[in-house]
C-alpha cells in the first residue's frame, strides 16, 4: 500500500484498501472558515442533531474576510463565532488567529497519520506532515461535524521524484509550479500526489507546506510527504496527543511515477490565468507590475518572510509598486518582529498587514483595479481572482516577488543582488 492507502485503511479499521474503493473514514480534524462555516452551520442545523461529534476535533478559523471587511462579512464571522462558542469548538479569534493552514500545524492540531477534511480547498497543505488532508464543501463538513465520519473514494497515488538539489532562490513553490506546469491543472485529478526524492528531503517544513498546499491546483485530492527527522522535529514540541507514522510499502502500487531533475529547475512564474501557465524566470521578459503580495497559506511562513527580507534589505520598493506583506499567523508575525524582518519591510516601503487571506481571493487588503498587474506568492491566478476581471495575477516565490517589487517588473532576485 502507498502512504495514503495505509492512512485511509487505518481510519476505516481495515487491513488494506485499494484505489477506487468507497470507504467511510473516521476523521481526526474537521475544519471550516468564515466563508464556508456559515453554510456548513446552516446544513448542520438541518440534520437535526444538537452537538458536534467531538468539539475538540472541530476547528473554526476566521481568516478570509477578517478583520471584517464589511457588514455582510461581519455577520458571517459572528455566526461562526457564536456557533463555535455554543459548541465549545477549537476557535481562534482575531488577534490570536492566522491563516487556517498556517496555524493548524503550528498549534499541533494536525499530526502525522491524521485524516483531515476541511471546507477549504487548501486543506491539502497538511500532507506536509504525513497526514491525509483534503478539501470538501460545506455540506460534507456539516455531515462530518455531526458524525465524525466521511465517505470517500480511495484515490490512486501518483509518485513524484525530485532528483538532485535545488539551486539558490529555488523553493518548494518553484518545484510545485514546475510540476503543475508539466502535468496541467487537472494532471492529478482525483489522485493523491506523493512528493519524494533527494530534493524534497532537503526542503524545510515551510517549503513542504507550500508544495502540499498547491496539490489541489493540479486537481489533486491530497499532496503528501513521508515523515522524516525534519517532520518529527517540527511536530514533537507541538503535539499534545499521540500520532502514527506510516511508511509506504516497498512494493506499493502507483498509478504513475514522474521524475524531475530539480537542479535544472529555475524559479517559476505562472502567467495569467492558470497556475499551469508557467515559465522559468529567465524567459519572462519585460513585464511591468503595479502590486506585489507576499503571504497566504501558500507562502506566509517565516522562511518566506526571511527570504523576502533578504532581497529587500537596504533596497526601496519601486515608486510605481504597492508591496503588501502579510505574515500567515501571530507566531510568524512575532518571529518576524524578533528577527527584524518587519522593520526591513517597512523601511523598504512595504505595507505589513495583520494575518488574513484578504487579497489572495480578492477580498480586501489589496484588491486590483482593471488593467493592473500583481506578482503574488499566492496559489491561484484565475480571471478576477484578486479583483477586477480585467486584472492580471502572476504567481511566484517570495524571492521573485520581492525582487519584482524593487525593480517594478517581474525580476529574478539575482538582478536585485547585482544592482
Amino acid at each position: 500500500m502507498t502512504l495514503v492507502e495505509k492512512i485511509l485503511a487505518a481510519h476505516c479499521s481495515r487491513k488494506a484498501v485499494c484505489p477506487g474503493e468507497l470507504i467511510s473514514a473516521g476523521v481526526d480534524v474537521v475544519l471550516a472558515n468564515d466563508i464556508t462555516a456559515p453554510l456548513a452551520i446552516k446544513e448542520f442545523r438541518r440534520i437535526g442533531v444538537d452537538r458536534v461529534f467531538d468539539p475538540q476535533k472541530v476547528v473554526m478559523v476566521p481568516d478570509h474576510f477578517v478583520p471584517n471587511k464589511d457588514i455582510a462579512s461581519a455577520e458571517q464571522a459572528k455566526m461562526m463565532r457564536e456557533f463555535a462558542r455554543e459548541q465549545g469548538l477549537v476557535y481562534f479569534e482575531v488577534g490570536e488567529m492566522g491563516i487556517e493552514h498556517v496555524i493548524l500545524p503550528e498549534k499541533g492540531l494536525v499530526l502525522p497519520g491524521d485524516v483531515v477534511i476541511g471546507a477549504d480547498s487548501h486543506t491539502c497543505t497538511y500532507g506536509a506532515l504525513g497526514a491525509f488532508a483534503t478539501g470538501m464543501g460545506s455540506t460534507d463538513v456539516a455531515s462530518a461535524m455531526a458524525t465524525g465520519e466521511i465517505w470517500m473514494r480511495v484515490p490512486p497515488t501518483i509518485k513524484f521524484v525530485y532528483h538532485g538539489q535545488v539551486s539558490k532562490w529555488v523553493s518548494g513553490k518553484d518545484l510545485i509550479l514546475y510540476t503543475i506546469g508539466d502535468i496541467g491543472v487537472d494532471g492529478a485529478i482525483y489522485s493523491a500526489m506523493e512528493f519524494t526524492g533527494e530534493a524534497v528531503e532537503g526542503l524545510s517544513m515551510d517549503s513542504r507546506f507550500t508544495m502540499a498546499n498547491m496539490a489541489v491546483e493540479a486537481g489533486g485530492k491530497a499532496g503528501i510527504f513521508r515523515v522524516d527527522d525534519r517532520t518529527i522535529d517540527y511536530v514533537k514540541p507541538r503535539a499534545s496527543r499521540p500520532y502514527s507514522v506510516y511508511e509506504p510499502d516497498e512494493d506499493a502500487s502507483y498509478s504513475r511515477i514522474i521524475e524531475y531533475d530539480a537542479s535544472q529547475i529555475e524559479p517559476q512564474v505562472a502567467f495569467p490565468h492558470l497556475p499551469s501557465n508557467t515559465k522559468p524566470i529567465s524567459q519572462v521578459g519585460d513585464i511591468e507590475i503595479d502590486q506585489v503580495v507576499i503571504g497566504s497559506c501558500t507562502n506566509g511562513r517565516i522562511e518566506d518572510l526571511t527570504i523576502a527580507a533578504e532581497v529587500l534589505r537596504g533596497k526601496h520598493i519601486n515608486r510605481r509598486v504597492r508591496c503588501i506583506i502579510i505574515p500567515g499567523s501571530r507566531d510568524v508575525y512575532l518571529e518576524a518582529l524578533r528577527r527584524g524582518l518587519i522593520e526591513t519591510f517597512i523601511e523598504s516601503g512595504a505595507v505589513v498587514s495583520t494575518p488574513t487571506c484578504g487579497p489572495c481571493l480578492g477580498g480586501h487588503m489589496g484588491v486590483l483595479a482593471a488593467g493592473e498587474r500583481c506578482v503574488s506568492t499566492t496559489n491561484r491566478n484565475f480571471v478576477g481572482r484578486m479583483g477586477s476581471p480585467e486584472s492580471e495575477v502572476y504567481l511566484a516565490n517570495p524571492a521573485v516577488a520581492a525582487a519584482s517589487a524593487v525593480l517594478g517588473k517581474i525580476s529574478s532576485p539575482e538582478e536585485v543582488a547585482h544592482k
Partner: protein
Amino acid sequence: MKIQGKVHKYGADVNTDVIIPARYLNMYEPDELARHCMEDIDSDFINRVKPGDIIVADTNFGCGSSREHAPLAIKAAGVGCVIAKSFARIFYRNALNIGLPILECMEAVDKTDAGDLLEVELSTGDIINTTRGLNFKAEPFPDFMLELIESGGLIEYTRRKLAASHRD
C-alpha cells in the same frame, strides 16, 4: 427525472472564481449568489438563462476553491444540469450534495453548440440534442443518487431516510 433546456457552452477549467467571484462570498443565500453566477466570464449569462437550461463545458469544470456557493449559484440560477468532459473533484461532491445533477459525456460536449436544445434523462443517462437530432449516452445515476437529487441534496435525503427508518 427529465431535464430540457437550451445550452450555454464554455471551455476547459471553468473555475469557481468565475462561477461565483469571492467578492460575493460575504453572502450565502442561493438566490443572492445566483444574481452573480458566471459574472466574470459571461456577464450576460444571468439575463439569458431560463429554468431548465443546461451548461455544457470542456474538462475540469469547477476547479479551484471548495466553495459550495458555486453549485448553489448555478442551481439557483435555474440551470437543470451541467454536462462536462470532466469535473474537478470538490465540485463533483458539492454539486451532488446540494442536488445539482452533473454528467460526464465527452461526445455530447464535442457535438453540442451554444443555443442547441437538449433533453436529458437522468435515470438512463440519455442525452438527446433535439436541434441536431443526435443521441449521446452518459453513465446513468444509481437509484439512491436520483433520490438524493430529487430530495434537493444530501441533508434533505438523510433527513427523509432517518424519518422513514423511525416510522418502521
